[in-house]
């Protein structure tokens, strides 16, 4: 009965922890490995124009990224001295409008977006309605109808229709109809524009889209046209220059439709420039940001929302349950006896600074000298609490002495002795001396060595980088540790060292 309750409880904890963990990992993209880095790209659009000699009102608009398949915006800002700005949604996507009452001389407006890869952004687009049939004058209309008929004959679905169409458009010299429709233009943008018209005539929703290739570093990034075609189910992407299907791996959609990238009211000579710069960013920060943008409460409850110093404290505290789990396993499954239940965990915390070997040496040094003093004090017949206090004082002085001597000798490791928990050391000395007197030195040393071994194992568990990272980023994994502890609490099998103890007994049995 009891066992059944524990299993249910442990299973519940396991599922809750696992669900939170999976959500944060898969949906919010919290990184599983500590050394993972996420690429982020800073894309900057710079508009430069001359407002003229006289002060006059200026109004500028610029299309900015809205729906960006494959990418998400982490951060964006608008830098423009003296200009007011608003952003709004227009047919081509999003637009920023800068305005100023009086401006003269050269002006510069900046729009900067920081974007990162986000595969979930592909699903955000909606299904468009069927496009209206294009109304063209003769002979264009006939050319269009003929082209649609020809392409339809040689295709099976919207995708193959588009590929076939783009192939014909690229080869403008061969086909009279194509030549008419392109009207002499043959750059990819015109071809994409013509393709949208032809696809509309074939009742296939399509749109012209323009974007930028995200390279590592580019000061003069080109705006590249692309063709989006909806096959009734989802959007397909085609390169109007080559006819190839698909989006480049790193391509940021900037705006859609026929409208021009920017408009300027009241200025003269205008120049627009795009620059791209790739950076590495801490994936946790990106994930936090993403959690905020999808309005998840998870980010509010994250340890990363704490001040940095507090974060450092929790980075250590969150490893203590793992140390405790190690103690549970070593005591109840292996069967090692230690001084004090969780004393090894606290000593293991000190090992973080000293490292294991130096830590073991320092610990043994302090405890053995402390024991000598403790035996000496036994002759003085002190009451228990004053005696404990005296041992504590001696422990502190010993630690200081070790640090000073080690410093003189140029040994760095001696300095970190100050991090040992001195009250714990004092209690260890006290208990060890009692065991020494009542049960003999062998048992005392055996328990002391047992404690050190457990502390060393705790330390090596608590020092695993992957675990440190996992428990800090996914603290819900502590629920798993809790579940395991609960289950171990019902373990009724033999302890490993009991097998040694009962070995001679087994030899005598059938």
């Amino acid at each position: 009965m009891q066992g059944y309750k524990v299993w249910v409880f442990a299973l519940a904890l396991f599922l809750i922890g696992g669900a939170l963990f999976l959500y944060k990992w898969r949906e919010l993209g919290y990184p599983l490995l500590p050394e993972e880095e996420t690429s982020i790209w800073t894309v900057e659009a710079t508009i430069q124009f001359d407002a003229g000699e006289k002060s006059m009102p200026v109004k500028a608009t610029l299309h900015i990224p809205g729906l960006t398949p494959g990418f998400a915006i982490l951060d964006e800002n608008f830098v423009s001295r003296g200009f007011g700005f608003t952003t709004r949604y227009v047919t081509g996507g999003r637009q920023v409008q800068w305005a100023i009452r009086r401006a003269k001389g050269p002006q510069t407006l900046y729009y900067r977006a920081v974007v990162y890869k986000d595969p979930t952004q592909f699903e955000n687009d909606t299904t468009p309605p069927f496009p209206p049939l294009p109304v063209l004058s003769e002979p264009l209309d006939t050319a269009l109808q003929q082209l649609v008929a020809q392409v339809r004959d040689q295709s099976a679905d919207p995708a193959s229709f588009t590929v076939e169409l783009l192939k014909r458009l690229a080869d403008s010299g061969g086909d009279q109809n194509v030549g008419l429709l392109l009207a002499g233009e043959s750059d990819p943008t015109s071809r994409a524009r013509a393709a949208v018209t032809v696809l509309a005539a074939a009742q296939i929703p399509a749109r012209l889209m323009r974007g930028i290739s995200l390279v590592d570093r580019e000061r003069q990034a080109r705006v590249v046209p692309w063709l989006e075609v909806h096959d009734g189910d989802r959007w397909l992407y085609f390169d109007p220059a080559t006819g190839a299907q698909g989006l480049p791996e790193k391509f940021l959609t900037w705006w859609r439709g026929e409208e021009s990238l920017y408009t300027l009211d009241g200025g003269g000579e205008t120049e627009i420039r795009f620059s791209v710069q790739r950076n590495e960013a801490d994936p946790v920060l990106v994930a936090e940001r993403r959690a905020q943008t999808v309005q998840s409460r998870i980010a509010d409850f994250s340890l990363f929302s704490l001040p940095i110093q507090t974060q450092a404290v929790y980075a250590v505290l969150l490893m203590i349950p793992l140390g405790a789990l190690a103690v549970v396993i070593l005591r109840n499954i292996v069967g090692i006896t230690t001084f004090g239940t969780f004393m090894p965990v606290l000593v293991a915390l000190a090992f973080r600074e000293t490292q294991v070997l130096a830590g073991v040496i320092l610990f043994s040094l302090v405890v053995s000298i402390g024991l000598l003093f403790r035996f000496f004090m036994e002759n003085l017949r002190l009451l228990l609490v004053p005696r404990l206090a005296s041992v504590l004082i001696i422990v502190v002085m010993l630690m200081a002495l070790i640090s000073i001597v080690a410093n003189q000798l140029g040994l760095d490791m001696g300095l970190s002795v100050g991090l040992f928990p001195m009250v714990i050391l004092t209690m260890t000395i006290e208990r060890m001396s009692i065991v020494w007197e009542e049960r003999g030195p062998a048992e005392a040393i055996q328990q002391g060595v047992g404690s050190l071994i457990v502390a060393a194992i705790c330390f090596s568990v608590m020092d695993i980088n992957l675990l440190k990272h996992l428990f800090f980023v996914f603290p819900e994994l502590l629920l798993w540790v809790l579940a395991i502890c609960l289950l171990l609490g019902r373990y009724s099998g033999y302890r490993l060292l009991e097998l040694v103890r009962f070995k001679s007994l087994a030899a005598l049995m059938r």
Partner: protein
Amino acid sequence: MLALIRKLQANGVLGLNERNCEYIMRYNPRRLYPLVDDKLSTKRLAMAAGLPVPELYGVINSHREVRELPKMVAAHRDFVVKPAQGSGGDGILVVSARVKERNVYRLVDGSILGEDDIEHHLSNIISGQYSLGGHRDVALVEYCVKFDATFSEHSFRGVPDIRVIVFRGYPVLSMVRLPTRRSHGKANLHQGAVGAGLDLATGRTTHGVIGNSPVTEHPDTGAAIAGLQLPQWLYLLEFSARCYELTGLGYLGVDIVLDRDKGPMLLELNARPGLNIQIANRCGLRSRLALVERQAAGAPVEERVAYAMHTLAAAAPALN
């Protein structure tokens, strides 16, 4: 290793985890622990029930009362000082003789302690040095058990005691603990005393163990361990079975000493008795515990003892 586990399982050898999980937690309610963890309350319970215990000369409750020890033991040549809440025999002092003129005490192992040594030891006991969790404690000063001739060949300087595991009032396994030179005359297996298994049906010793290894002779006296007959065996079993009603603890270790003049006396009770008794008897506990679990509650003491002597004693180890 798997073969070892299987063999131990087949013989019903109990491990610590299983003892704690399946027996102590289930049959020993925590609220009853103070009855046995505090030897003073155990003693009072036993006296109220008419079970013989070593006579209590006095209790030292505070540091101030430490000085009253000489008055307390003035009428006695020898006595024992023990912490009321000590465990595993820690902190017990057996004084075999008092030299009144020089104010010194001779201990059972031959060492000499001065007045202030004893007082220091008493104040350590009161400060809680030997109690579980370091709580304040009191020191008991009581009658020192006289060596019974039964064990003259089987003990080195100390008084042996008899441990009976009593489960739901049924004695299930028992042994006698024989002090050795290594155990400094204490009847404590951890300190190196010999554990000798007892045949539940007859009260005769069977096998011996020191630490975890079997022995056939007492290491100091050379006497054969097996074949020693305990006196008043039926009475000893009834005595220990009665301790169940005394405390209500289902899984209990009863420690009894044999006194030359006053016969068997209850020394202490243990709510977490050790498992080495299985090695001393070369017999696992589980099959006997399983048999007792099938018995209805409420049987009288005589019936339970008869069941132990006739059925449990003959139970094959691999019966579960």
